[in-house]
């Protein structure tokens, strides 16, 4: 080859050899400059279509004029040999420079900005590198970074991704899988399509390696490396790597492309911000392994949700979990914990319109926020400004969001939140902005409401599906209030409900209601679990009657309804106000199928010995399937479920933090899901959809 002319380049000397070909130094006799020429080997197992696309990509890449991209001058074929003429870059590869200990953070940032800038230009032109790695990034003696092999990586041979690496110092030993696999993103390993975000993953690997001299995902075999890429999180980089740089690397290495930066220019901007801000760079430690390890890694598992899956949402005092199953509801995959260390008092699955959105309220030292996820928990909003806030003139500040209630199905942008201190907020733009419902907040009774053990909480919001102007709220301790004019005015509806802790036992308001439920098929009927007392109203809360006929205690928290049978209700009685644990250490759900005329215990599969459990007001729910599933969680962190209407129970999970809230939903094919958060969030169409079977079920219930 030496002395031969390829196009107008005379080959001068061989300077390296790789898996796919040989690199020569050449002299461009037309333009009088030194160049590098890569000649692709005939046996590089390129079929004709691969060969064609390699040519096309090389031609596209030749249009990338950028100081940090090794310019491709020419591509062509001579006697069946494919050759690429490019800028001759002399310097050291980033792999060599990183060595075994990594570069100083300042150098990593300096190089990283240039690499990100190169990727930004290429991505803007629709060109994805596909094989970015420290071995094909060269740093010249002047500190200029050059990214090589742009657009040249293609699938060759048996589907192995390989680049015709040209770097003078890294040609040797870069053939085959070992040189590339550690930089492959999970989506490529899964066989999914790759896009520009796959390059951002590789950039994360490059930055990690440049900063530490180590690869983030290692292993002795390809299998081990692949497994690490798919499942493991890399060991954190502590000082001297600044936290800002580590945060950028972590975001590049998010397993899901959606969780990464979406554009190379964003990475560039973030690296520049770390570079230019007055960041404290801790002194490099002489021996990093001797440093105290104070970084805590959060391992979050995600569940993959498919059509027709059934999801169970569990809010705890230290985060949320998402469980998935199919309609049999026997086996569960568990995702989470989301919101590490934060209390999640309310959750909802919103399938109105075309969305599949999870709503969650999170609460910690840093305040209370309403957040949502459109990808089943993989990413959550974290708004800069808290959207739910009391107006300045109220002097009040938000302590907790106890309830997220979806508006009617035909108003998919309407939402309500019941909060502490007791107040109701409304959004008409899908949660972007919220307003305090003044009619209730300015109610003359409000100054005389008293906080219960859990604070002064508005914890239940029920919408009447047959009358959009009618809503109910329940307040602990304030009682039940109803509006007939869409929230303008509210009246106390507590006739017949006791308040044992008050001098007057049946006051107009001030009752400590623990939970209330409404059946969409019979919306004038309500059930209520009071701080002492189980009640039913058949006239929209005008009058309440005691239905604690045959329960071991009428103290308890949750009350949930069967989705189809308005006579069927579930409650969990607990022993005494002081103890608040399951009666006699036997964990039992009680069910009535005659609207409270009698109650029967459901206990098969539930612990019946020394089970001193408490089920909190929102920690129980029913689903919409047939047979109906019932789920509840305990303060001791156990999650129980029944997929046969309560006949048999299993412990789905144990060892969770205290369970505050349990909700469920079905991911139906058209995005429609039935959600049964203690029946408080039924929508019009869900009741219509289940209407036919509801009638059938009611008849069956009567026959039984």
């Amino acid at each position, binding site marked *: 080859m030496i002395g031969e002319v390829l196009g107008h380049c005379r080959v001068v000397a061989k300077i390296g050899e790789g898996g796919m070909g040989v690199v020569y130094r050449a002299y461009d006799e037309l333009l009088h400059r030194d160049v590098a020429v890569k000649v692709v080997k005939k046996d590089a197992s390129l079929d004709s279509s691969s060969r064609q696309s390699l040519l096309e990509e090389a031609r596209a890449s030749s249009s990338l004029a950028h100081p940090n991209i090794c310019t491709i001058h020419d591509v062509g074929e001579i006697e069946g040999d494919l050759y690429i003429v490019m800028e001759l870059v002399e310097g050291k590869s980033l792999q060599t420079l990183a060595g075994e200990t990594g570069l100083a953070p300042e150098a990593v940032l300096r190089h990283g900005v240039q690499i990100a800038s190169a990727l930004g230009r290429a991505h803007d032109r629709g060109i994805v590198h596909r094989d970015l790695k420290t071995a094909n990034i060269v740093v010249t003696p002047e500190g200029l970074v050059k990214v090589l092999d742009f657009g040249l990586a293609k699938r060759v041979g048996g589907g192995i991704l390989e680049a015709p690496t040209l770097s003078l110092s890294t040609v040797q030993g870069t053939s085959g899988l070992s040189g590339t696999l550690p930089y492959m993103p999970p989506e490529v390993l899964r066989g999914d399509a790759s896009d520009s975000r796959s390059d951002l993953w590789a950039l994360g690997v490059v930055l990690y390696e440049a900063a530490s001299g180590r690869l983030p995902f290692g292993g002795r075999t390809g299998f081990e490396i692949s497994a690490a890429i798919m499942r493991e999180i890399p060991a954190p980089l502590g000082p001297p790597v600044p936290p800002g740089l580590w945060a950028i690397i972590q975001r590049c290495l998010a397993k899901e492309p959606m969780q990464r930066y979406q554009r190379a220019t964003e990475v560039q901007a973030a690296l520049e911000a770390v570079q230019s801000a007055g960041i404290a760079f801790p002194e490099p430690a002489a021996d990093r392994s001797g440093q105290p390890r104070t970084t805590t890694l959060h391992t979050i598992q995600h569940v993959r949700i498919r059509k027709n899956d059934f999801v169970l949402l569990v809010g705890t005092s230290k985060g949320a979990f998402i469980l998935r199953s199919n309609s049999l509801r026997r086996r569960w995959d568990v995702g989470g914990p989301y919101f590490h260390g934060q209390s999640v008092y309310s959750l909802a699955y919103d399938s109105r319109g075309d969305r599949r959105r999870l709503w969650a309220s999170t609460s910690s030292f840093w305040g209370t926020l309403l957040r949502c996820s459109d990808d089943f928990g993989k990413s959550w909003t*974290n708004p800069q*400004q808290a959207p739910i806030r009391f107006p300045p003139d109220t002097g009040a500040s938000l302590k907790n969001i106890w309830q997220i209630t979806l508006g009617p199905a035909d108003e998919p942008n309407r939402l309500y939140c019941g909060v502490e201190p007791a107040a109701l907020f409304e959004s008409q733009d899908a949660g972007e902005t919220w307003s305090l419902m003044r009619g209730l907040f300015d109610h003359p009774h409000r100054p005389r409401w008293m906080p219960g053990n859990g604070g002064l909480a508005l914890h239940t919001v029920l919408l009447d599906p047959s009358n959009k102007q009618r809503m109910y709220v329940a307040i602990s301790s304030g009682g039940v209030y109803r509006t007939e004019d869409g929230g303008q005015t509210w009246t106390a509806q507590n006739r017949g409900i006791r308040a044992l802790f008050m001098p007057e036992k049946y006051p107009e308001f001030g009752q400590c209601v623990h939970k209330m439920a409404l059946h969409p098929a019979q919306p004038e009927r309500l059930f209520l679990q009071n701080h002492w007392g189980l009640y039913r109203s058949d006239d929209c809360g005008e009058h309440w009657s005691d239905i604690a006929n045959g329960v071991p205690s009428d103290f308890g928290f949750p009350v949930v309804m069967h989705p189809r049978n308005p006579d069927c209700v579930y409650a969990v009685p607990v022993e005494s106000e002081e103890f608040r644990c399951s009666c006699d250490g036997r964990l039992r759900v009680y069910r009535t199928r005659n609207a409270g005329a009698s109650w029967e215990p459901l206990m098969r599969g539930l612990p019946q010995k020394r089970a001193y459990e408490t089920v909190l007001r929102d920690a129980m729910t029913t689903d919409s399937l047939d047979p109906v599933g019932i789920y509840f969680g305990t303060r001791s962190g156990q999650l129980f479920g029944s997929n046969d209407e309560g006949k048999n129970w299993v412990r789905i999970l144990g060892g969770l933090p205290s369970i505050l809230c349990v909700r469920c939903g079905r991911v139906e094919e058209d995005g429609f899901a039935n959600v049964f958060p203690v029946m408080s969030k039924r929508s019009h169409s869900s009741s219509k959809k289940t209407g036919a079977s509801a009638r059938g079920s009611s008849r069956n219930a009567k026959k039984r």
Partner: protein
Amino acid sequence: MSVTFHIPAALREFTQGRSTVELKFSGGTVTDALSALWTACPGVRDRVMNEQGQVRQHINVFVGNENIRYTGGLATLVPDPSLISIVPAVSGGN
């Protein structure tokens, strides 16, 4: 005059990952200094303060080594140069 803020890990999402943020400051009280921080990093504000402008119950703000709860609260004057630290209370039991 400048003021440097120490940002706890939980809030670095709103400071582009920075553990410290150094800002130009024309002098004044903790309120003035925090206002400059809210302008630079708006997401930090609602995590530190409630909507009525009070520092959240379990959050402490230090100027140098002094907790402002004992030096005049948000009206505490900020000397030059200063390090203002935002620190969540060390508490437990949950």
